[in-house]
């Protein structure tokens, strides 16, 4: 899977003989080393969840947010270098408000995803910029219904039913594929996401983690917000029980 570029990997403006841009692939590695981020599209909305690896026990719970609201109807979960992620979120927020003031309506999620992807891609074209070291999962609810997009450091953007990035993305994808998303409501989706994150968290390698979840669905009146506390606690409890049951087997 990984190969050293040896000479062709010093600049993002250099292709290798076999047609790869190594700097972009290294940027993707930065994403793969961060905590898992998943997003799923249920029949009435989107649920996103982040496995926030806690660096120090002194950190205040709830700080260092990884999920951000871009506009009233959409939100973004970031994996990879957090500072790079903040930059992309700022740009997305600015695109969204600019669209609203020019066209008089909330930015369609498809349009937002394209603009974010263009911005990420921009930074892979010039030698004086480095690519963003983060992957984005963008979920929103516009007049065409709920939509989920994923943007990679190369600037590729695709629309998904379920997406995962980060350390546990392979395991998470397998779990997501088991779910029947088209029949699931967001309430059930929240529980499912929590279970998946708890499951893919590697207790041996990383010690503590904090779960962060958000949704945008009919129940939240198509607004992007943190999952309500009671549902959140319910989801965490269900996830812990599921984990214990698995260990007990």
């Amino acid at each position: 899977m990984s190969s050293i570029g040896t000479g062709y990997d010093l600049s993002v403006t250099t292709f290798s003989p076999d047609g790869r841009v190594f700097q972009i692939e290294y940027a993707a590695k930065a994403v793969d080393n961060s905590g898992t981020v998943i997003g799923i599209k249920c029949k009435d909305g989107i649920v996103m969840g982040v496995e926030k690896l806690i660096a120090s026990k002194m950190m205040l719970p709830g700080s260092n947010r990884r999920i951000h609201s871009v506009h009233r109807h959409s939100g973004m979960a970031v994996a990879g270098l957090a500072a790079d992620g903040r930059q992309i979120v700022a740009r997305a927020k600015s695109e969204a408000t600019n669209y609203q003031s020019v066209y008089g309506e909330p930015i369609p999620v498809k349009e937002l995803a394209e603009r974010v992807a263009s911005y990420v891609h921009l930074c892979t074209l010039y030698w004086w910029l480095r690519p963003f070291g983060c992957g984005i999962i963008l979920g929103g609810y516009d007049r065409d219904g709920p939509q989920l997009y994923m943007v990679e450091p190369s600037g590729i953007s695709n629309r998904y039913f379920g997406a995962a990035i980060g350390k546990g993305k392979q395991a998470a994808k397998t779990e997501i594929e088991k779910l029947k998303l088209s029949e699931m409501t967001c309430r059930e989706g929240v529980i499912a996401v929590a279970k998946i994150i708890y499951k893919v968290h590697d207790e041996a390698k990383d010690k503590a983690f904090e779960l962060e979840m958000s949704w945008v669905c009919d129940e939240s009146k198509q607004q992007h917000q943190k999952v309500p506390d009671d549902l959140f606690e319910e989801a965490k409890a269900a996830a812990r029980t599921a984990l214990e049951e698995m260990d007990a087997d």
Partner: protein
Amino acid sequence: MDLNMDLNSPHSMGTTIIGVTYEGGVVLGADSRTSTGMYVANRASDKITQLTDNVYVCRSGSAADSQIVSDYVRYFLHQHTIQLGQPATVKVAANLIRLLSYNNKNMLQTGLIVGGWDKYEGGKIYGIPLGGTLVEQPFTIGVQPGKLELKEVQCSHCSLENFWSIKYVIRRSGSSYLYGFFDQAWKEGMTKDEAEQLVVKAVSLAIARDGASGGVVRTVVINSEGVTRNFYPGDKLQLWHDELEPQNSLLDILNSPSPEPMNI
């Protein structure tokens, strides 16, 4: 008001434009008179212009200003449609017009009515009068009285000394009966034919009373099936109170056996 205008030469640009929603779409209507002062520069103009396949705009006020604004918005909407991958909504078209009107309010003098159909909201009408307000309404009329003649006139119902506002008030009140007509005649959930007949009737009433409106009545019907343009020539319109039958020549009246040139 433009203070650099030669105060002794009157120049007006009157118009009647109407936008009405009905069950399933909208009907836009307009007269066809473009006048500069007493001279009718174009007696068959088309004041309803296309912005996109599904959105049209009725123009009033300065002909140049309204044309430029619609040209810009047509261009922006075209680009927007390409980016979006689907037809633009009426709301977006109206917002673009509003931004141009508001941000250039010192230089422009144009009142516009944007009407169209899109798959999310159905038929919608937006009125954008002089200052750049954006108002969504089930129906709207614009009777542009045009620029003012500078005359010493004492207002009949207020004692203003300011000449600009006096004339404006008088002219305005002359056309305000059309608002009353609509308050009475418009109802929700009309059919396409009812709505079109209402528009034609209203424009023809305005033409009868407003010296700055005349010519033919043009209507544009927009709904999910598409756009239909209709044309009602001026002499085929219903005659209102005190209106004469069209005559070929006054000589016919004089030579006719009946000596009455006018029926009182």
